[in-house]
């Protein structure tokens, strides 16, 4: 097998894996958008906040330590204990639910019935607020995230040697796949199945779908909109937490984590705002597309390097693809035809 083809396959597979992570973030968007019509720009920052909270609790950091020290002149930094990952995870889920409640109670309850674009701008404000809040609470250093379940079952690091060896034996060329990406893919599959099962087979899930379908009809059969919205924001918070763990373990818990939210926007454009399968397929297309485009045209590896754009095309490829999609198929691949045109 020619070496270049193997490389291309490697790029393709890695793109697929990156796409899974985009899809994870996009999933949170779709959940909130379907239930409340809010386009939640703060999803990425929620992932950052969740990951920071998880690491903070694990390492026994004192919340707001910097602020407390600055105000009272003390020198507290940590409680001096380490919390097992599983407990920290449960605590973090609690924090995310609290956050969901607060967001609903203090922001969006007051904005019911506003235009979508006002809600969108409110979530941009929320994203700023949450980012500053997270930094104040857990300080803004880059943190490493290690996540271990009981029984030494940690998130794996590094490349998968088994696949590399197998590829070397078969084709004589190594094949690089990150262990973490494989795990992320598995986790994403489990998460999606769990979400679908929840929304199809439980009472709350059914209520959620009812609200997504028609607010007023749901209200008239006795479903509490407030409760469903808090539920949906909590679910989105949980998805954000999973995404935050995966991205955090991959590249450290830091500010750039919140920028993946921006990458999730084109994913949604492609997949459609209202479709969970759309978010996944869109994520995969964007992930593969930007990696292959970078490989082929960004650093000029295809067609004898005829086109070489000088790299870093990943920054904009997704958006331009989404732009093209918008012009020719505005509702995305799987979305409902709700777009208003003039």
């Amino acid at each position, binding site marked *: 097998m020619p070496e270049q083809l193997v490389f291309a396959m490697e790029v393709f597979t890695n793109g697929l894996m990156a796409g899974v992570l985009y899809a994870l973030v996009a999933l949170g968007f779709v959940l909130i958008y379907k239930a409340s019509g809010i386009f939640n720009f703060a999803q990425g920052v929620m992932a950052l906040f969740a990951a920071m909270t998880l690491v903070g609790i694990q390492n026994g950091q004192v919340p707001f330590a910097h602020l407390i020290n600055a105000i009272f002149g003390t020198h507290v930094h940590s409680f001096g204990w380490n919390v097992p990952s599983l407990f920290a995870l449960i605590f973090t889920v609690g924090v995310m639910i609290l956050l969901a409640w607060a967001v609903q109670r203090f922001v969006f309850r007051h904005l019911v019935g506003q235009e979508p674009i006002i809600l969108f701008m409110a979530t941009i404000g929320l994203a700023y607020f949450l980012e500053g809040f997270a*930094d104040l609470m857990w300080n803004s250093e880059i943190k490493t995230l290690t996540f271990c379940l009981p029984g030494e079952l940690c998130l794996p690091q590094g490349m998968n040697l088994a696949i590399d060896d197998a590829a070397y034996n078969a084709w004589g060329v190594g094949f690089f796949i990150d262990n973490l990406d494989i795990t992320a893919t598995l986790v994403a599959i489990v998460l999606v199945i769990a979400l679908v099962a929840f929304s199809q087979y439980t009472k709350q899930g059914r209520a959620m779908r009812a609200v997504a379908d028609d607010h007023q009809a749901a209200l008239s059969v006795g479903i509490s909109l407030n409760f469903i919205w808090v539920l949906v924001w909590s679910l989105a918070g949980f998805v954000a937490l999973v995404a935050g763990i995966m991205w955090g373990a991959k590249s450290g818990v830091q500010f750039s984590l919140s920028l993946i939210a921006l990458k999730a926007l084109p994913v949604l454009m492609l997949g459609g705002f209202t479709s969970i399968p759309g978010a996944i397929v869109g994520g995969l297309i964007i992930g593969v597309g930007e990696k292959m485009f970078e490989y082929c045209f960004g650093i000029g590896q295809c067609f004898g390097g005829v086109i070489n754009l000088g790299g870093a095309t990943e920054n*904009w490829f997704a*958006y331009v693809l989404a732009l093209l999609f918008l012009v020719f198929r505005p509702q995305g691949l799987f979305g409902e035809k709700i777009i208003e045109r003039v």
Partner: protein
Amino acid sequence: MFYREAGDFKTTYAADNQTFPIKIDRMGYYVALLVAFLIIPFTINDYWANAILLPFLIYSIAAIGLNILVGYCGQVSLGTGGFMAVGAYACYKLMTSFPEVSIFFHVLLSGGITALVCILFGLPSLRIKGFYLAVATLAAQFFLVWLFNRVPWFYNYSASGQINAPERTVFGVPVTGPNTESWATYLFCLVFLVICALVARNLTRGMAGRKWMAIRDMDIAAEIIGVNPLKAKLTAFGVSGFFIGISGALFFALYLGAVEVGEAFGIQKSFLVLFMIIIGGLGSIFGSFAGAAFLVLLPVVLKVVGVDWLGWPTDIVAHLQLVIVGGLIVMFLILEPHGLAQLWRVAKQKLRLWPFPH
């Protein structure tokens, strides 16, 4: 008692249609112009110019531009940073290619070039709206920044990838480069701001502005009463791009002097200008000024209070600033969607009847 229109009789149509119909408003406007042109240039120092006045003037122009697009025409744009970068690089290329032409025309021309780019990226607005359009403009933001980073022609093949403003003079006084005086750069920006504000104010009062507002309020109805949405939207993109391009050119040439595109014109800049018009007031020229002043002053005030008085470390103050700005955005959207400009309007309305409100 002192703020009212009673006794101020208009005898001509022109007088009836003037920008400031109430006499005291008019006086206030002239006084503000006098202070800005005749008093501040003599009292200005470097700290005031660089920390407050220059950013205020330049961001005001950008905010007016974005306000025309978002506030008047209802097309949300997140590409302001990218469009400012177009203005900056256009100005740089013009300054270095035609050194004998006055920089005044360079800045105007870079506004024109930005207008064209802005119209190009505004084309999707004919098919989509709302946050779909916001994402389309996000594409402009990332693509333009990448373009200026990667294509060496734009930065004249300099080794650092930066662009540096060469020295240019107006009437013999240097306004760009290392040897500038703060009053000269201040006045240069002020002239542009006054021209832009006048043009914007009169455009939005006239036919063009009414068309934009009709599109914003209800596009289908606007089309039925004879507004051409294609023309209205694209002119809004063009005019907005023109102002944003001017502000980008001034931001690079007069304020920063040297620019690394990702840092100076990143996505954060787009949000900053958007926040200015949300806080200041969507659909109001005065609001653009108020919002720009607010968000330029806020970090300065926070720094003085937090770092200098209370002695907190700078990173805490920076985080606190994010919390405050985010919180304010949400608060304004909930409590006063028309921003500071609406508060100002309400205050004036109260003042008219004061002290006998009934």
